[in-house]
């Protein structure tokens, strides 16, 4: 990837200067245009996308949030319908498509949403997801990749603007707002207090810390040949099967559905929850038989979904390199290391093939 190309491409967009002082004003303006969500501090050292009450709490320089943006479109716990337990009847639960502005998200986060869009549009397009997804505007921000971010290695550069309306790049005085689409243009103009920038902005290169040994477009090929790799068994030795990698994944969307009844036994709700293929009961069938009993086969399934199954269908990798599975894995299993081990296995196989 040539960084000069990125600079050229980005400078084709209209640019405005948002000074550091103007950022809270801009957020306040955004709040007049829709419900604004942004990364805010959660706990001592973590971040979470939350509704913005006070623009002062918005964080623009953060490594990643705990949950990805999917929580807004596929909530961790979602009521599908409510029922009258005594009379055996139900009411549909409305999905309100409020206008929402997501402020200060990273490019891989946006890509994660685009992957989910694919998954929920294909086959039977799901109203619940797609209704929530409507009327959303995304304002991106640059970030410094840390040792867990694989996005760059997977072809999603920091300045990837697909899906965004505005992209923010930090400069000395504040941020340069690159206007990406019409919605972004309307917001900048509506705010009206920013100065247009005409000179070329030399965007600083943000080098990736995590590397993959192959170009990302060779990964589906690698995954065609590593189904029986010993790497899966090696990971299973460390893996605790806690499911953190599934739940926090930007593109995982598997779910479970449960009915719960109120304590007075009058009413109840049918709810869906995030679920994951790493968890014990996920692949269970009648008679408690489990057709993916081993942690090794579960990890294999999880990663084949990211790099092969959905990729073959959609043409895009379904890992966006957010780094959550590595960063939050209690056993410190690192996705980059895993992929490199699989690549090594694959190259070894190829060498053997050539030798014969």
């Amino acid at each position, binding site marked *: 990837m040539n960084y000069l190309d990125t600079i050229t491409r980005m400078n084709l967009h209209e640019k405005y200067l948002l000074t550091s002082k103007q950022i809270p004003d801009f957020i306040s303006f955004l709040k007049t245009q829709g419900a604004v969500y942004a990364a805010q501090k959660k706990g001592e050292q973590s971040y979470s996308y939350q509704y913005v009450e006070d623009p002062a709490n918005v964080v623009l320089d953060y490594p990643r949030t705990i949950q990805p943006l999917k929580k807004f479109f596929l909530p961790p716990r979602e009521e599908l319908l409510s029922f009258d337990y005594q009379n055996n009847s139900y009411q549909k639960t409305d999905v309100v498509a409020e206008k929402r502005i997501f402020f200060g998200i990273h490019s891989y986060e946006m890509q994660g949403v685009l992957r989910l869009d694919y998954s929920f549009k294909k086959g039977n397009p799901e109203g619940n997801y797609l209704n929530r997804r409507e009327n959303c505007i995304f304002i991106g921000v640059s970030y410094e990749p840390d040792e867990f971010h694989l996005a760059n290695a997977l072809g999603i550069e920091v300045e990837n603007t697909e899906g965004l309306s505005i992209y923010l790049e930090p400069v000395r005085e504040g941020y340069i707002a690159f206007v990406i689409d019409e919605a972004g243009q309307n917001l900048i103009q509506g705010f009206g207090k920013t100065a247009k920038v005409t000179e070329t902005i030399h965007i600083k290169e943000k080098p990736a810390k995590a590397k993959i040994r192959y170009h990302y477009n060779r990964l589906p090929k690698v995954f065609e040949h590593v189904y029986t790799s010993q790497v899966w068994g090696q990971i299973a030795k460390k893996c605790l099967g806690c499911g953190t990698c599934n739940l926090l994944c930007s593109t995982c969307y598997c779910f479970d559905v449960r009915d719960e009844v109120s304590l007075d036994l009058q009413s109840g709700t049918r709810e869906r929850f995030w679920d994951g293929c790493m968890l014990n009961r996920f692949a269970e069938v*009648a008679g408690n038989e489990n057709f993916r009993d081993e942690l090794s086969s579960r990890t294999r399934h999880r990663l084949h979904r990211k790099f092969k199954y959905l990729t073959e269908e959609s043409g895009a990798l379904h890992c966006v390199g957010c780094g959550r599975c590595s960063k939050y894995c209690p056993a410190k299993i690192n996705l980059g290391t895993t992929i490199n081990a699989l690549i090594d296995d694959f190259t070894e196989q190829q060498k053997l093939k050539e030798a014969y």
Partner: protein
Amino acid sequence: MEATTIQKQELYYPLMSEIIQVDHLTRTEKRFIISLPDGQSLGHKPGQFVELSVFGFGEAPISISSSPTKTGQFDLTIRATGRLTDKMHHLKTGNLVGIRGPFGNGFDVSLLKGKDMLFVCGGIGLAPLKSLIDYTLARRSDFGRIIIVYGTKNPSEILYPSEIKVWQERPDVEFHMTVDRPDVNWEGKVGVITTLIPPLDLVVERTVAAVVGPPVMYKFVLMALKAKRLPDENIYMSLERRMKCGVGKCGHCQINHTYVCQDGPVFHYPDIKRLEEAI
């Protein structure tokens, strides 16, 4: 995003439908005859399933055990083994249940026309196959021989005794049955289902086998069919997974890249024989 151009669907709302008849089949199985509101037909294909729910007890995939040629109502044969199915066994005629579907691919009956049909049914596997058996019997002249091979653990688990009696008596149906563990009154064959296959006199080129049974059965039935030189292309089977949503989203039924609820539950054997985790 171009969501406006997409027909968004309300996928998870059931249609409240009435139980119009309950038949006690065995100690653990009952047949429920269900009618959708306003007499509408389910419009299913043999081999498809519905998502059945009772509020408070959840939802589960249940295969349809009646032929689409029977309109205005459909049958579900249910073994009491879980939260929902136990509850079903407490429901009575007139009770309402939630129905979504039909889902899955079902058998492509156009490919079966003119063929000799061999049904291999293990235990409760007869329930999903019954939709196809009934279909072939309703369109009897469209098919060649109809051979039904049925095995259960013991005589008390035999489903549909009255239908079986009819099949046994019909000259145009070849019916073979065996039990694993006979009781004192049992006069029929004893042994596992695979013992019924070697004696069959099949014209393999025009025979299509439809196989459904418990997971352990498939491997042995496939071996027995192979020994009869039945080509893999002539074998179909239906797989059981816990299809939670039925619409290819929830992920529970996924085997490698295949969603059983979308690409199955009926599979052409050549398509899945190299699919690990399938059988």
